[in-house]
């Protein structure tokens, strides 16, 4: 399995996605920072404290990496079917389900670690830049950041699971646009926020929603390969 993942990594040049990952991190941080700084001079600033800043940052992170993962899914799975290279892969002395498992594991792992890495970098940037260029008035403590680690890991896991859902839409017509479009819709849907002016809530905050969607993603991932050894290759 690990060997297959390495081959897949090498074949699809997954390393090149780290550059895109860095661009995503800078963009997310840039967007949140600009919002914080421009609203700082108003009577009611957008982010009164660290928790509020991270709330919006996490929304961006979730949307960006669900879409990012769908791009990877398209490249690793859908394109193999579209370009018919999947036929070549299935003529190798390897279990087909292992080949697909390796691809999905890369997508899941990349999404999971990207979210963790992005959260760490943004937290470090906030911690180091806030005293010089304040994002919010309330002081930020390392303890607050450390306390958010378990939630970050759990959220990263759930988003990585959710990021597999678009394969269901993509595989129906072997379409990369369908994969990415469905990811955009899922990303915006689970992060959609309703507000009464004072308080706001998003679907992701109802813990049952991300858990169920994560399970749906993992089940879709499983269904995408469980019968593969017994069916014809289109």
């Amino acid at each position, binding site marked *: 399995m690990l060997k297959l993942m390495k*081959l897949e990594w*090498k*074949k699809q040049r997954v390393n090149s996605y780290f550059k895109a990952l860095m661009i995503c991190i800078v963009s997310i941080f840039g967007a949140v920072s600009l919002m914080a700084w421009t609203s700082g001079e108003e009577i009611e600033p957008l982010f009164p404290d660290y928790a509020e800043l991270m709330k919006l940052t996490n929304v961006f992170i979730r949307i960006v990496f669900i879409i990012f993962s769908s791009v990877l899914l398209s490249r690793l799975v859908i394109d193999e079917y579209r370009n018919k290279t999947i*036929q070549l892969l*299935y003529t*190798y*002395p390897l279990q087909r389900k292992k080949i697909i498992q390796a691809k999905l594991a890369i997508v899941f792992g990349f999404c999971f670690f990207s979210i963790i890495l992005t959260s760490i970098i943004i937290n470090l940037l906030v911690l180091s830049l806030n005293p010089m260029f304040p994002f919010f008035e309330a002081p930020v403590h390392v303890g607050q950041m450390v306390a958010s680690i378990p939630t970050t890991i759990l959220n990263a896991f759930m988003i990585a699971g959710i990021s597999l859902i678009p394969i269901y839409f993509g595989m129906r017509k072997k379409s990369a646009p369908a994969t990415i479009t469905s990811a955009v819709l899922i990303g915006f849907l689970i992060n959609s926020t309703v507000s009464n002016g004072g308080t706001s809530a998003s679907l992701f905050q109802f813990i049952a929603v991300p858990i169920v969607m994560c399970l749906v993603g993992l089940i879709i991932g499983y269904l995408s390969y469980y019968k593969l*050894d*017994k069916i014809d*290759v289109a």
Partner: protein
Amino acid sequence: MESVIRIRQLGKTYKGIESVSNVHMNIKKGEIYGFLGPNGAGKTTVMRMILNLVKPTSGEIIVLNEIVQPTSYLYLKNIGSIIEYPVFYEALTAYENLELHCEYVGYSHKVAVEEALEIVGLHRVGDKKISEFSLGMKQRLGIARAIVTKPDILILDEPINGLDPIGIKDIRELLVRLKEQLGVTILISSHIVSEIESIADTIGVINRGRLLKEVKMDEIRAQHSNLEQYFLQLIMGDDQHA
């Protein structure tokens, strides 16, 4: 002589249409088996069934004494193939594509890749990306990939499509050399009957999903003027009968 591929009562029905029906084939070790038939006769489907890309509805395929089950895959280590047209990872170079193939098959490849590229005359363009390759070059590279791991069996579906006359001659000579020097068993289909005639030991003629005849090339030479005439007689006779 020992059979390398044995096919018994093979059938494939897809959406209620029988594309292959009751096919029997016997491919002996070290021979070149020419598989002939008009477009849509079922050649590619049979080849894909041998490679387990398509699952038979009925019958049995035995490759190197192992019954091919829907979940079989280890026997594929002994088979090099081109099905329909060769596909590659366009962003990789020719060398990288072959290297990757060896890694997937689990074959030590240090010299093999260069050798294979040299055999098909692509050693000077090994570092070029596939997107820069012509159809003929891709076809040559497909053959290089099929032979790079030195398999016991080659399954080649229309391998000379897109090749120029020199390319066709090179591939013809290569296949004969592989058979004679390495004892490789080759199942080859082609529309160019004269090419099959010049290299095949046994001919299988398929039409409308049924194998009409499996005959030694020597018999055809002894009883008929040439393979083309024999082939056309068989096909037209079968079509009239239908």
